[in-house]
């Protein structure tokens, strides 16, 4: 029985994803970064001692990504930084998607005062300028040592509202469909209608949003570090990029070109991997996009 269930799951969900080129490529890229974050730091040692005389060394066998402004190996920093980047951005995106989906689905379905109240909450979070709000949060939490999950939650607070607004709009179009009417006639509970009937249809859409949130989550997490809210991590890719562009001026010297390049390359690859997977999932599970098959 368990084997059958596993096979059903495999044929229904995994095989279509493997056979889709985009989702396969996206999965491979993401798997690469997950492996980098999990076992990479165990294999690649990190030496952060600065060696100013050897700054901006070009990529070589000794330094695959070259050295940075401090003369520190960039590859080692990328590997060690991947852990905080990936965990923080994944958590933040996940929380934002959960909050955005729950509030968005509820807003789309509910009518009357409840719906208006949710709408007002979404609008408030949409219009609050995030940077001054983060400054206030920095002042409030200045003395608190926040862990990754807590920081991710703070980041998620500023990311969920646009998604909720979009999902609410989607739900409004779905809720008058026949199967939802049928559930209502059968007196199915609100939770069932919201999260079994409606939310299921939105899964590919939510996943695409989850991936696009990664970039914003990364930007916010860097912002929090520079606000002193999150623990400062010199190997975080965002901090590395900030050092490269604003403090070391690497773009102003040909010697330093590889410094921001490799950091940006990894950020782009991580996000591109997510986008490919999201597009693949949409193609596989959205019947409209599979129409040509």
């Amino acid at each position: 029985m368990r084997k059958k269930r596993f096979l059903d799951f495999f044929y229904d969900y995994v095989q279509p994803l493997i056979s889709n080129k985009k989702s396969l490529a996206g999965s491979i890229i993401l798997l690469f970064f997950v492996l980098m974050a999990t076992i990479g730091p165990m294999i690649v040692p990190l030496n952060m001692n600065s060696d100013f005389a050897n700054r901006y060394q070009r990529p070589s066998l000794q330094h695959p990504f070259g050295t940075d402004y401090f003369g520190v190996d960039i590859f080692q920093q990328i590997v060690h930084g991947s852990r905080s980047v990936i965990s923080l951005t994944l958590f933040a995106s996940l929380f934002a998607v959960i909050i955005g989906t729950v509030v968005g689905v509820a807003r789309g379905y509910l009518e009357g005062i409840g719906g208006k109240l949710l709408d007002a909450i979404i609008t408030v979070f949409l219009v609050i300028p995030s940077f001054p709000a983060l400054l206030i949060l920095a002042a409030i939490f200045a003395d608190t040592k926040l862990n990754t999950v807590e920081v991710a939650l703070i980041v998620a607070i500023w990311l969920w509202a646009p998604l909720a607004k979009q999902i609410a709009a989607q739900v409004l179009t779905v809720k008058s469909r026949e199967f939802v009417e049928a559930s209502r006639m059968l007196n199915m509970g609100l939770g069932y209608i919201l999260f079994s009937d409606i939310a299921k249809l939105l899964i590919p859409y939510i996943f695409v949003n989850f991936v696009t949130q990664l970039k914003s989550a990364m930007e916010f997490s860097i912002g929090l570090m520079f606000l002193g809210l999150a623990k400062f991590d010199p190997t975080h890719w965002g901090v590395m990029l900030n050092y490269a562009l604003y403090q070391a001026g690497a773009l102003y010297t040909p010697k330093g070109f590889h410094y921001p390049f490799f950091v940006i390359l990894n950020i782009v690859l991580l996000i591109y991997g997510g986008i490919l997977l999201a597009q693949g999932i949409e193609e596989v599970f959205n019947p409209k996009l599979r129409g040509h098959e």
Partner: protein
Amino acid sequence: MSNRVKRLIAVLVLGIFFIGLMGISLGASSTSSAGELRLATDWPYPFHGNPFGAGAVGGAWWFVYEPFAYYIPQSDEYIPRLAESWKIEKGKVTVTLRKNAKFSDGKPFTAKDVINSVNFIQAMWQWPYEIENVTAPNDYTVVFTLSKDAPQSFVHTILTDAAIPALAPYHVYSKWANLAKEVAELGKKIFAISSSGKTPDAQLKSTYDKKADDLRKQVNAFSPFKTLKRMPVIGSFEPTKITQSEMVLTANKYHWLYPKMKINRITFRRWSSNEFVWASLISGEIYAAHPNMPKDVVEQLTILNPSLKVKTTTDLSEIALVFNYQKPLFKDVNLRKAIAYVLDKSKVRDVAVWQASTCSPYAHGILKSMESKWISKDTLSKLTKYATNAKMAEEVLKKAGYKKVGTTWQQPNGQPVAFTLSVYGPHSDWVLAAREVVQQLNNFGFKVEMKLIPDGMRDQVMKSGDYEAAIEFGVTWQGYPHPYNGYMRLYEADLYNITKFPSKDKYSTPWGKFSPYDLTEQLRDVAQDKKKSIDVVQKLAYITNEYLPIIPLFEKVLPIYYSDKKVTGWPAKDDPIWSLAPGGIERVYNLLITTGKLAPKK
């Protein structure tokens, strides 16, 4: 619509677009006229032209206001500006004003303007109460009577601070002159009572608060730029056109040095970021600026714009590692000594500000560039040298009962030596220094984390004591290049307020036991007497070096980049005039322009 008409409209639109572009580029190039110096700075927008308003006049300050004199630290020379001469007596300074000085609207500058300015700054800023009274025996003489508590160094402030002579011209600010005088008098009275240890009368205090609030409300809201359609100034240039991105100053044709001036226009680009200034220097958009620049960027800059030269001069300040003495960890001088031995300050300097001067191996509170002038060889031989030496650090710690368990040092009470190093985020050179300091201390076996102080919160964090250790300005001599300035900052004022180092305690020295606070007070009283000052400085240097209230990291320098492509006449690199730059680089440009040295390249 026929195709022909559509094509015609498209051609018309394109034509308008190109004409617009040409207009923009012509407009931009028309600002690049002869006799112009292009710089970068910041200013409030909308521009009000009121020195008491928010943001004052921004970087135009030293072009629009003149002091009685400029002081050149390197040659120890005063250059008269608004003063023709001055006489210093005990508790009194008599200044003879320049008779041919005029405001940019043609009105003459007289003693009335000086008295009005002093009243205004005392009323608006509650400073400088060291001036007890200003009188005018005639239109061109002013006598400053100083309070008995005024330090000798205050004479230097009177002579060189541009706010004192003509910040509030009488003919522009006459509407509030009486009220300003009244508020200034009340403020001085309250200050004198408080200074004598008594509590000012509540009635007096309430009258003062009411009148001062009233004055501040009215004066802060005043915009000469809006009301008078101009800003009459005593300086060599008047702001004439101000937008968000550009501030243009035009030469004051009534300035007594106007006939000598060959530069008649200053154009400021907004200093939005260091990177903007780097790019503007490379492209030749600005002719001079003083941004911090990484070594490789400087090399690239000289390749791309060979006309650029760089001169570094001391900023009369140092960057230091400071401690919060309200945290028990740092009360132990042995730990501070160990940290001083661990740190490789040359490495810190390399990554933070490569042009900066390496710090002295001592931590005596005297800038390295001034060490030979103020500390005798005999005193130096008595001081501990903190050259990088991890073994010495270990010895000091072990002797004091610290233990290394595994890779981490533990205090005698068994707790790890762990602390957070705070650094102000927007100061990129400080952040780089902090990163290096954290790395070195962690390598040694301390557990140090780095924390960034957000933009705009430095004062709040440091003053509230919400930090353990931090990167900050150490001793600074800007304004008045005398050790008193540095020690006052360390033991009585700014740094003392944030570190709370027990400066009133007595510390052993080869000359007996002294408190650095008392010694600083003594130094204040003898500041004008170099021999007596040197005597006090030896004791202060000893205490500062042996009890390490702070650990200096490097002496800051001001890198000045200037191009001779459009403007010539820049002084030689060893010219003492460059030493006027710390605390107001525009003074150098102003002096060079008004003496006719800077001229457009033909």
